[in-house]
């Protein structure tokens, strides 16, 4: 790369490979390649640096923030964040990191252990919230998650906290009864505070393939997701599926998880993400 060469089938195939191996998916990759063919006349000479610059700019444009998902940071008190997603993506760990983050900006934080299904889910969150030095509302395994959520919203109000972060059980987006349970949790919150939850974060694992698009669609339908946290970006997976998710659903990535320590959470920066895609 970096020298003049023809935009031939081989270079287009190389680009196709990078995009698909980055989990951007067939459709989005094809439309990016079509844009390239339009902009650079195939079989004409061009600086391949220019080609990759154009490629990165194209993808950056796709990730630029759409107005419909902008919300004011901590505009209300208590600011309520509901955390959702399929099994094992990093919800509980991300909540520990978020709580720590807010606590460090002098906010009063409360976390709710509303995963009453999985073994040791409450114990796991309890260890994280102690590390973050914040309070926890929890209960026994097997209790009704809606009851925990109700108690936690009431507690957030009476204790006058700045932020309430609610952990939920991992669930397949294809299980209707579990998605109904999530809708019920959302209704319970809204009954007490009409415009809450103020944020609904969908946790996606950077290792995921095209199924993440289905997950985003279903969780968006059930709980009006406002943003994505892309976890496990410290691995080798690129997480490119967030590009078709942004294109099709307008859903932006808010944060990224880059490790298993409490400080391993960063604000999503599209430029860095695109650079990493091609590194």
């Amino acid at each position, binding site marked *: 790369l970096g020298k003049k060469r023809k935009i031939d089938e081989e270079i287009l195939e190389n680009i196709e490979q990078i995009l698909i191996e980055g989990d951007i998916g067939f459709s989005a990759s094809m439309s990016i390649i079509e844009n390239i063919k339009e902009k650079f006349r195939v079989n004409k000479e061009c600086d391949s640096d220019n080609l990759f610059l154009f490629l990165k700019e194209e993808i950056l444009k796709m990730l630029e923030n759409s107005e419909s998902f902008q919300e004011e940071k901590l505009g209300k008190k208590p600011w309520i964040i509901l955390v959702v997603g399929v099994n094992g993506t990093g919800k509980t760990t991300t909540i520990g990191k978020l709580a720590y983050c807010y606590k460090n900006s002098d906010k009063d934080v409360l976390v709710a252990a509303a995963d009453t299904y999985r073994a040791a889910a409450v114990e796991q969150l309890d260890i994280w919230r102690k590390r973050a030095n914040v309070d926890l509302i929890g209960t026994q395994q097997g209790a009704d998650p809606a009851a925990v959520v109700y108690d936690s919203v009431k507690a957030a109000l009476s204790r006058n906290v700045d932020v309430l972060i609610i952990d939920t059980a991992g669930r397949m987006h294809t299980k209707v009864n579990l998605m109904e349970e999530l809708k019920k949790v959302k209704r319970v919150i809204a009954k007490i505070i009409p415009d809450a939850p103020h944020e609904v974060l969908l946790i996606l694992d950077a290792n995921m393939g*095209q199924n993440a698009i289905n997950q985003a669609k279903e969780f968006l339908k059930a709980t009006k997701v406002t943003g994505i946290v892309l976890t496990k970006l410290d691995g080798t997976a690129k997480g490119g599926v967030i590009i078709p998710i942004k294109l099709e659903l307008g859903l932006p990535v808010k944060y990224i998880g880059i490790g298993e320590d409490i400080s391993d959470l960063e604000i999503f920066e599209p430029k860095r993400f695109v650079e990493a895609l091609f590194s």
Partner: protein
Amino acid sequence: EFTEKINIAFKKLRGLATINEKNINEPLRDLKRVLLEADVNYKVVKSLMEQVQKKSLGQEVIRSITPGQQVIKIFYDELKKILGNSTSEFIMRPNNPMTVMIVGLQGSGKTTLCVKLSHYARKKGRKPSIIAADPYRPAAAKQLEIMGKATNIPVFSRITEDLILSTKENIEDAKKSGYDIIIMDTAGRLHIDEEMMDELVELKQEVVPDEILLVTDGMTGQDAVKTAVEFQKKLDFTGIVITKLDGDAKGGAALSMSAVTGKPIKFIGIGEKLGDIEVFHPDRFASRILG
């Protein structure tokens, strides 16, 4: 039972009286798309489609079917090759205590699998027990203890500063107590984390497990092969388990792991409950990928 795209591609092919490089281009591209959207590995798809094209154009005429139908048959045959031809059994020798080491990336479903695999072994008349060997994840041991109690499966979860030593001691205790299937739950880790991979290598050297199962999330995308190759290099694992197939993920990536490493898929996970484990069937998987 097949996706719309597959039906369209097959229809185009069936309608061809003669085939040449031009008229099979589009239907083969459709098939490539279906496989990529099922998360089958890019290089695996590329070489598979190249084989299909080569064999289709070089095919000898068979009288009973049209050339287009023959292309479909060639596609199926090539797909079957990467799916593996037989159900690879998880063999449990009756009289010798057997140790199984469970490894994989974070959150893939290892801890849950330990409990499911124990239950599976118990139904086959074995005496399973679980060794907790994850000292990092908050409440990991507790997770196993709770699940063990709920399912009446013994869990040995005493872990000290020396993980390797306490694991060996737990295994000895399990063997002495007469358990003949001993399943070790390890911490989730990145294949690029040298220190953590070294820990597994050391554990393998000290314990000499009979089976090492790489547990992988069924929703994994293109990076799956990289993970598998690295785990193979360091551990030469004996089998793969694909979890979370109760969702609508196609599982093409996990399949690619098996195709590239040559390691068999032994089980699939189809839910969070004790009984949600099945022996892997390659032909059922083909219809999942194409369906």
